[in-house]
């Protein structure tokens, strides 16, 4: 059992396979159960968010509180229907969610789903860069730390991993900005692209909103370079956070598999040490990493709010922060509910991948 090695960080990874054992029935049944679990998960989160936001008041008072007279306030509340019984509002809200309507922002009258289309690409792009950084840094270093366990490189790497976790993304972002943009002046301070590039990118037909893809489509080297140079610092800031977690996870799990008899057997047959680590010990250790990667989606989304604010990266997270400042809590509620759906669906996808990679999960 390699899954339980990282006990505190991943209790759900250990718990899920255990619970699905009772079923039998194989892959199809497992997938069905996991799929059906999406609904209660989304339902619970949406209900929680709704209750949180409404139990203490209505969003209009929260947003406009001091600025309107009592009568005006009352009128606005009545217009929006926030004076009806809370249960009625709740069922109406559930109905809206079921139809894919996550509400309309108070301040600028934008449907939340439109915000997703407009800014989701940027967040996806940032998460993609971060994952790349995390994998490139986390997996090799984790293997190295496991191989040299309890020697000084291991200690250095582990402290590096803890530092990655201990540094808030926004502080990492500020430091990177300070060093690379202000002192060394080699990378841009903020934004997703310079103004000229942005113009070139948005002028191509049917832009995807994912700048890297759009830049590649223009085929212009300067544009691609500009987009990539803007991506380096935010990608590093958010990626290092996850890299630390991957490093620890790979280390613990490779140590676990490295002491297995089959590794000793392979070694006695004369398999080279580097191959032992790469093929024999790493492969089985990758399964929990895939599961944790799914859980990291949540961390990445939370981190994206902070990273995007630090780097003025105009994605969904930036919008959350923006609407928070504007005290538009309808927008915040809508985006959070939408993210709940996204998290639930990605976790489902990760579970499928884990089940395909590791037959133990589905039986």
């Amino acid at each position, binding site marked *: 059992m390699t899954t339980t*090695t990282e*006990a*505190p*960080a991943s*209790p*759900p990874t250990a718990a899920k396979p255990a619970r699905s054992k009772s079923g039998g029935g194989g892959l199809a049944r497992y997938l069905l159960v996991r799929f059906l*679990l999406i609904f209660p*998960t989304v339902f*619970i*989160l949406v209900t*929680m*968010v709704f209750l*949180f936001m409404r*139990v*203490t*008041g209505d969003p209009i008072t*929260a947003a406009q*509180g001091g600025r309107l007279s009592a009568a005006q306030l009352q009128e606005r509340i009545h217009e929006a229907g926030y004076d009806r019984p809370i249960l009625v509002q709740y069922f109406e809200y559930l109905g809206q969610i079921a139809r894919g309507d996550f509400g309309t922002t108070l301040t600028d009258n934008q449907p939340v789903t439109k915000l997703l289309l407009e800014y989701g690409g940027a967040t996806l792009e940032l998460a993609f860069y971060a994952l790349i950084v995390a994998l490139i840094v986390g997996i090799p270093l984790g293997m190295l730390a496991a191989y040299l366990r*309890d020697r*000084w490189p*291991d*200690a250095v790497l*582990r*402290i590096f991993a*803890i*530092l990655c*976790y*201990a*540094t*808030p993304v*926004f*502080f990492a972002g*500020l*430091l990177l*900005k*300070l060093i690379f*943009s*202000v*002192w060394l002046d080699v990378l841009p301070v903020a934004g997703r692209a310079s103004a000229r590039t942005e113009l070139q990118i948005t002028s191509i037909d049917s832009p995807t909103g994912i700048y890297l893809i759009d830049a590649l489509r223009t085929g212009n080297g300067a544009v691609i370079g500009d987009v990539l140079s803007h991506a380096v610092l935010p990608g590093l800031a958010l990626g290092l956070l996850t890299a630390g977690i991957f490093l620890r996870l790979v280390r*613990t799990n490779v*140590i*676990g598999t490295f002491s297995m008899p089959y590794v000793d057997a392979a070694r006695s047959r004369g398999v080279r040490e580097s191959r032992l680590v790469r093929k024999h010990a790493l492969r089985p250790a990758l399964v929990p990493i895939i599961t944790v990667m799914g*859980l990291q989606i*949540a*961390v990445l*989304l*939370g*981190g994206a*709010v*902070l990273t995007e*604010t630090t780097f003025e990266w105009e994605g969904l997270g930036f919008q*959350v*922060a923006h609407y*928070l400042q504007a005290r538009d809590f309808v927008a*915040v509620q809508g985006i*959070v509910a939408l*993210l*709940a759906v996204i*998290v*639930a669906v990605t976790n489902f996808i990760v579970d499928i991948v884990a089940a395909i990679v590791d037959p133990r999960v589905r039986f």
Partner: protein
Amino acid sequence: MSENVTSNPRSLGAVWRRLPVVHQLRQSVGLQRGMLVAGLVITGIFLLTAIFAPLLAPYSFNQLRDDAGRFSPQEPPSAKHLLGTTVGGFDVLSRVIWGSQTALLVIVFAVLLSIFAGILLGLVSGYLGGWVDRVLVVIADAVYAFPTLLLAIVAAIVITGGESDLLGGVLAASISITVVFVPQYFRVIRAEAVRVKSEAFVESAKVVGARAPRIMFRHVLRNSTRTLPLIFTLNSSEAILTLAGLGFLGFGIEPTQAAEWGYDLNKSLSDVTAGIWWTSVFPGLAIVLVVLGITLIGESLNDLADPRLRARRRRRGSTAADAAAAAAPATIETEGAR
């Protein structure tokens, strides 16, 4: 657990040695001991700073002037302001020191609240089982998978409506963090309760006629707490990070009410572009150090609790460092090699 061969096993000393962190400190060797000690030292400094903040800080956290007049904003480090001043004209060093107090308060409140709620729910759910258990597990799973910070934001909106004083701010942050942490305690305690309830002594307690609450708290809970110190440290560090994240997004505590590192970092965002580094680097380092210290303790506890990760002294092909470490604390050899 194991017999101690060196000294009198009874008396206060024996109790002392079985305390969570002390026991692990004696059990550890080499690098692991180094990490644990480093963590304890950093955390100790943090605690002392928080407690003695009023004595250590040269100014108050919301002080804008002294006898010589108003502090000028964004002043670089000097003899008068060792770490410079912020954009609002506060003394950076003072705010960093006072910030430790806010952080400690939030940790204490948040962890106490979540331990209390999580243990209660986990115990009831795990021991009684049935549909209550299933529903609670699904809810805990759903909350667990969701981004911590977003959930905390939503909770903070409700509790404070955005801004508040020291106590309100600390409570709001703590409760927001609690909402996120309860599922973790719940999970751990529930798993332990499920494991313990099938043990023979629980059976015998039932036969004797003890009622459910007594069994739960006397027999099951007492035997379910072994992983708590570990989660405690993990959550403390996460509480600081969440507090800083909330502060960074503008849900912190007003600067006139208390010092909060995340809030100061948010205010220093624009300073960075102008090359003003002292307003962001010091509060940021404070967060990193405290989280590092607490996490080092947690990591060490985790490793020592797992026999596969615990550094071993007598091992075929052990490294030079291992051998050196093994030679030194020979007195606890039996305990470690158990």
